[in-house]
């Protein structure tokens, strides 16, 4: 498919090749584990191997005498260290704030999940630390593990946290005032479709495991943390202010090249706090490198919802109401943003692309003896999309309607559109993305392909769905009202150097998104200079302005907007300098292709002449403006952005084995304006890969005793190259965002949000085409599950 935007070779809309690739392709990247600090010691965390137990004693007497051991820390050695904080407080439907348990850096009186850290062994080498860990004797009185969410809420259930009243974190209703009206609408409906489903627990598994290196300079009293983070400023604030009591000016957090995040590297983790603390206590650097096995039992996990959704329709097949009841697993502790995910990032998206007038969402968040659950690519929005797009598909089948036509009939078509779940979509054109999908997916050819599959003994199915998401999180005053304990602006400092090049310091963080390439495209376009005159600096609190980092597809929409605002200030000041140099009025100065000119004349000065004048101000309006050319902007968005689109999946099911293969996958997205179409395509590809992984393969499984059964890549089925197809992706439908200066919406999560329902819809279609009475199968659609469903 031709991509007309690719014809531009520079600036906004160009498929500029990524400059960061050179270091990654030559082995010269600088990931956290590549960093070694002179004299560093190594820490190994001894973790609980039981899911729930009372910690009676930790005997380190033998271990501390082992070769190379520097010191062994338990919770008793962490005096003055606070607990790991939660960044969001939910108020429940009765007006009470959520139950918020303590989360110690090292376990105190209890262990609450397999992997809960108990002791930290610091030694001269990683091997010596591990050897010593083996010599520690633990006395843990095992307690019954709380694993099943509904059982966890039974009267008399064992409590994960003894000091809480129950395992219920909160019982959230949204919009609570709609509850009775929704109940009534469902009673009055001509048809109600009900679906109970599980959104399976996932492990983010960025390919780079987490690493933390704490360092301390006794001469200055400064602490430094090198860490695998998506948001170093957030870590500095949370860890400094709430855990270790280090003010920001004495704490530097560096997140260098980071090997993927997908949400799991947003959060402040105990290991980061420990390494920073221990470096000061020991007056030497302390390094921790997670193994993949540790990652499975210590990185925050994703999804894990159990939901009942009801969709009410009137006699003309218009959606009249949606009611949902969801159990959302928090795990044993509240991770940094955990309470926000099943609530504000899920409930507010339940309208989807449709003009359903009444919606009520109930979410019960539950503590269990499992690893904490927080945002994973999409974060609440995939959970909303999955249930909504599955129940619509089921309704279409029950009513004998074309699922695409039923969707179209109920599309929101007028913008701005205020949903009944508190958000306002600024722009969109859901009919256009559906039309585009039908074209790129060649739905007209499906019947022929189905016949060909049948010839080969395979059942072919087609699944189509829409999605909408809320990105660019978010207006600070709004999220403050919703319980956020942080602002969600972002920032950029644009420094123009004397000879005309620019250095841009941003609060966003790139860990695969290609900011070092795409951000300069914007500035190059604004000034009319080559992209390589702009360099992006990110990932170090010492040289970037306070920003909230990268997640929720927010970098370009929020930090990019800050960069635009700062660059506008630069251009405004540069025009004043140019006006002085050309002895013209400020208002007459135009900037094009890196040249300032006086309107209506052929007088001009080059960008570089102006920047040099700013730093060598011999001929300069010093009485009016300061020398230098450097500006900072903080941008707080007015609203979320609302990317949306339509996805189609074609599967083949082997009726003998239940094995599902993805034959075609197509995505038509509306991301508003696009800066680098090559990077956008890549973001969608990756999201689809993860979404297909969730739908067909991935599953994080605990047994009844809380043992993690899927604790390595041997048991947790990561999608591999031969599990996935080429994808057809298109983002030519563009309704620009109305409230940020670039008109961009964000593209990082769409693929992961939009793809799981397409896959499941397709498998159900395949089975029903063979006369099987299968209306739903829970993800992942493994051969065993599909085969079992086919047997009825």
């Amino acid at each position, binding site marked *: 498919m031709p991509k007309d935007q690719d014809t531009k070779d520079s600036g906004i809309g160009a498929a500029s090749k990524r400059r960061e690739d050179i270091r990654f392709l030559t082995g010269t990247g600088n990931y956290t584990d590549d960093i070694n600090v002179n004299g560093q010691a190594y820490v190994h965390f001894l973790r609980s191997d039981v899911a729930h137990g009372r910690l009676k004693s930790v005997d380190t007497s033998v271990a501390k005498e082992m070769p190379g051991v520097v010191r062994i820390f338990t919770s008793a050695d962490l005096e003055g260290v606070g607990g790991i904080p939660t960044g969001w407080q939910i108020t429940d439907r009765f007006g009470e704030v959520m139950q918020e348990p303590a989360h110690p850096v090292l376990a105190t009186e209890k262990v609450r999940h397999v992997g809960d850290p108990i002791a930290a062994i610091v030694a001269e080498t990683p091997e010596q630390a591990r050897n010593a860990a083996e010599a520690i004797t633990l006395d843990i009185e095992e307690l019954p593990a709380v694993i099943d969410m509904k059982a966890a809420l039974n009267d008399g259930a064992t409590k994960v946290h003894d000091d809480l009243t129950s395992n219920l974190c909160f019982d959230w209703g949204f919009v609570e005032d709609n509850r009775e009206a929704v109940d009534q609408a469902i009673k009055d409906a001509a048809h109600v479709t009900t679906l109970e489903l599980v959104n399976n627990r996932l492990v983010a598994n960025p*390919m780079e495991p987490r690493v933390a290196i704490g360092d301390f300079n006794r001469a200055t009293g400064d602490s430094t943390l090198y860490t695998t983070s998506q948001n170093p400023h957030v870590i500095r604030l949370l860890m400094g202010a709430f855990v270790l009591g280090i003010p920001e000016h004495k704490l530097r957090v560096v997140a260098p090249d980071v090997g993927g995040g997908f949400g799991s590297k947003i959060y402040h983790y105990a290991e980061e706090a420990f390494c920073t603390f221990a470096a000061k206590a020991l007056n030497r650097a302390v390094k921790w490198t997670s193994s*993949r096995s540790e990652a499975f039992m210590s990185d925050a996990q994703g999804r894990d919802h159990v939901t009942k959704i009801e969709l009410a329709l009137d006699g003309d097949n218009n959606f009249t109401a949606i009611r949902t009841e969801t159990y959302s697993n928090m795990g044993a502790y509240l991770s940094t943003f955990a309470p926000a995910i099943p609530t504000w990032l899920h409930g507010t998206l339940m309208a989807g692309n449709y003009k359903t007038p009444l919606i009520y969402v109930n979410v019960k968040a539950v503590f269990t003896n499992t690893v904490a659950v927080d945002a994973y690519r999409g974060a609440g929005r995939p959970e909303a999309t999955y249930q909504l797009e599955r129940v619509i598909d089921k309704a279409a089948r029950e009513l004998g309607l074309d699922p695409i036509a039923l969707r179209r009939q109920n599309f929101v078509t007028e913008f701005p559109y205020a949903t009944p779940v508190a958000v306002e979509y600024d722009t969109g054109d859901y009919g256009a993305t559906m039309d585009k999908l039908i074209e790129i997916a060649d739905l007209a050819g499906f019947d022929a392909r189905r016949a060909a599959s049948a010839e080969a003994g395979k059942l072919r199915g087609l699944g189509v769905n829409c999605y909408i998401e809320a990105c660019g999180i978010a207006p600070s005053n709004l999220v403050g009202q919703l319980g956020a304990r942080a602002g969600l602006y972002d920032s950029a400092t644009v420094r123009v150097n004397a000879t005309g090049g620019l250095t841009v310091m941003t609060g966003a963080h790139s860990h*695969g998104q290609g900011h070092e390439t795409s951000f300069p495209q914007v500035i190059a376009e604004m000034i009319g200079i080559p992209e390589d005159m702009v360099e992006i600096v990110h990932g170090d609190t010492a040289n970037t302005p306070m920003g909230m980092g990268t997640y929720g597809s927010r970098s370009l929409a929020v930090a990019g907007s800050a960069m635009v605002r700062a660059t506008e200030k630069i251009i405004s000041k540069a025009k004043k300098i140019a006006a002085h140099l050309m002895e013209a009025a400020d208002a007459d100065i135009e900037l094009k292709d890196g040249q300032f000119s006086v309107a209506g004349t052929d007088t001009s000065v080059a960008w570089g002449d102006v920047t040099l004048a700013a730093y060598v101000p011999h001929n300069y309006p010093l009485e009016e403006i300061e020398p230098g050319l450097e500006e900072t902007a903080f941008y707080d968005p007015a609203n979320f952005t609302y990317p949306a689109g339509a996805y189609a999946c074609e599967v083949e099911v082997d009726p003998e084995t239940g094995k599902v293969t993805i034959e075609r996958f197509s995505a038509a997205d509306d991301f508003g304006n696009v800066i680098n179409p090559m990077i956008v395509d890549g973001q969608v590809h990756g999201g689809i890969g993860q979404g297909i992984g969730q739908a067909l393969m991935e599953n994080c499984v605990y047994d009844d005793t809380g043992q993690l059964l899927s604790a390595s890549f041997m048991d947790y089925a990561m999608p591999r190259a031969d599990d996935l197809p080429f994808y057809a992706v298109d983002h030519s439908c563009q309704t620009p965002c109305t409230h940020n200066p670039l008109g961009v919406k964000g593209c990082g999560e769409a693929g992961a949000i939009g793809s799981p329902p397409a896959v499941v819809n397709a498998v159900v279609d395949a089975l029903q085409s063979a006369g099987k009475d299968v209306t739903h199968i829970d993800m992942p659609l493994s051969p065993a599950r599909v085969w079992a469903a086919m047997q009825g």
Partner: protein
Amino acid sequence: MTKVAMTVNGKPVTGEVEGRTLLSSFLREGLGLTGTHVGCDTSQCGACVVHVDGVAVKSCTMLALEAEGAEVATIEGQAAPDGTLNTIQQAFQDHHGLQCGFCTPGMVMSAAALLKDNPKPTEAEIRHYLEGNLCRCTGYHNIVKAIMAASGQDVSVLAAE
């Protein structure tokens, strides 16, 4: 500790290692060649793939001492001395075959091993060959495309492009 000697990217190197030291650890910590990455502990992810005597090996699955006397090639030795990317590396950049870059060294080394034995692999052959290399960012689309392009195949008409 035992002395070990091998050739890495054409240069003779020696080091002192424990019997249990993995080749990946020796390369990263012993030689400072941190381009070889370790993404798992079960030999599944392939971020650590290097070539030992011309054969693709997961360096986390081989002891450093087993490489005694061997010719080892890592990602650091793939570009020309002046920094010019080799054909596979250039194809990965041209076709956006990497995002976070962590799996990339292993992908490039695996692709090189594949193309040595099979200069024009089909899409299916590439996908099958890469079963030992995990990528979480790209959904593999552009990795497969880059390898096809590196082998001289026209990728401009891929159905899903």
